[in-house]
Structure formats: structure tokens, C-alpha cells
């Protein structure tokens, strides 16, 4: 449910690969209106994680589609932070 006072959406956040190591204490839902805002909200409590998120190769997806950091978010969106992939 969106927060009625702030108008912000409740977002499910996921961190993959090495990002997950720095995000173990991050709550699984965060109120924010863009992925960039999620990152900014984490800066105070998780400086190491945010340093990693600021690496230029890190991509963001919303509902499993790659998007820009300023993609508007809606209630129930799933936002994932993706370091460079290493499959195959």
C-alpha cells in the first residue's frame, strides 16, 4: 500500500551478486518514487552498498525489465539492482 501521507510507493527491492553481500540488512520493502531515490535513502545506513550501486556497470530493473534510474515507481513494483552478469 502506498503511504497516504507521502504519496510514495511501497517497493520490493532485490540485490544480486556481490551487491547482495552489502545488502543483507536492507529491508525488503522501501518507500520511494524512483530507483535513484532508493539508492539515496540507503546512503546513510549502507555507505558501502551505495558505493557499489554507483559503479557505472550496475543496472536497474523494474518488474524484470532494465530501466533508467529515474523510472517512476508504483506500489508493488519489484526493483532489482544488477551487477555485471557472469553466467555461461
Amino acid at each position, binding site marked *: 500500500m502506498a503511504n497516504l501521507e507521502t504519496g510514495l510507493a511501497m517497493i520490493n527491492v532485490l540485490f544480486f551478486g556481490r551487491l547482495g553481500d552489502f545488502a543483507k540488512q536492507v529491508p525488503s520493502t522501501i518507500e520511494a518514487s524512483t530507483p535513484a531515490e532508493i539508492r539515496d535513502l540507503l546512503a546513510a545506513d549502507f555507505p558501502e552498498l551505495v558505493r557499489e550501486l554507483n559503479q557505472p556497470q550496475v543496472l536497474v530493473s523494474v518488474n524484470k525489465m532494465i530501466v533508467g534510474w529515474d523510472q517512476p515507481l508504483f506500489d508493488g513494483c519489484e526493483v532489482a539492482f544488477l551487477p555485471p*552478469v*557472469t553466467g555461461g
Partner: protein
Amino acid sequence: MTDRIRIQEQDFDLAEEYQLLRQTDSAVGAVVTFSGLVRDFEVSAEGAGSVMNSIDSLSLQHYPGMTESLLEKIVEQANQRWNLIATTVIHRVGDLAPKDQIVLVGVASQHRADAFEAAQFLMDYLKTQATFWKSVKRNGEQQWIESKASDQQAAARWDGSDDK
């Protein structure tokens, strides 16, 4: 076009997948398979100064739901670029030991050039586009694998022109 895409923890049987590819159609003249295996070491960096470290095990994480749809897109692109009869992509996730199979790409076509090129394309794109992340354990300590510039370069050769 018969496409099989699977992400799974269990091992795969190359022989079984080969028979499926081979028997799709009597027009199949060429079948190429690529298997990726866990080596018992990992190279720490590319170029000079690289160090080979032996590993105990390898672990593969992926983004369920997203990986499947990315693999479907990659296979669709291969079908658009080459004349293919059947394609198989199997990628394992979870914990793997040295010598284990990680990934299988198989392509059946009329002519060998299509099968060879499509298999290389699929592997290059799989390495750089699909949401898998590898970590290794050595002496009980987990470490994430760095992505390789050489994989980015390999994938980049398919961009732009329709040709290599």
C-alpha cells in the same frame, strides 16, 4: 523452430539433448553443441599479472523470471539472424563442483555455418546479457567472479552489421 530453454539445478544429459536436436527434422544436416564445464581453477584477472587460483566449488545465482525471458529473447534473436531448425539452451544454477557441467547450447540447422555461428552468438550473449552471477569458494571463503572484458568484446562483434 523448436526451442528448448531450461534453468535447472540438476545436471543435463548432452546425449539426450543431441538426439532431440538431431531428430527434429530430416532436413537437419548439422548439429553443434557447446558445453561449459567448471574448471578446478579461476583466473583472478585478465592479461599480464593474472593469477590462477584453485577452487573448491562454484555457485550460480540467477534472477528467476527475468533470466527466462532474457534467454527467450536471445534465442529469438538467433532465430532471426540464422536459418535454424532447433535450439537448446540449458543453464544450471546452485552449487557445482569442478568438472561439473554448467551450460549447454545446442543448435541444429541445414548447414554448418548457421549452427556454428548461432551457437557462438548464443554463448556470447548468454555470458553478457543473462542474469546469472557466479561465485567461487576457495579455502571455505566465498568470492564473486568478476565479469570479463573479453566476454564483452566477444558479444560486441555481433552488434551493428548483420555479418561478423
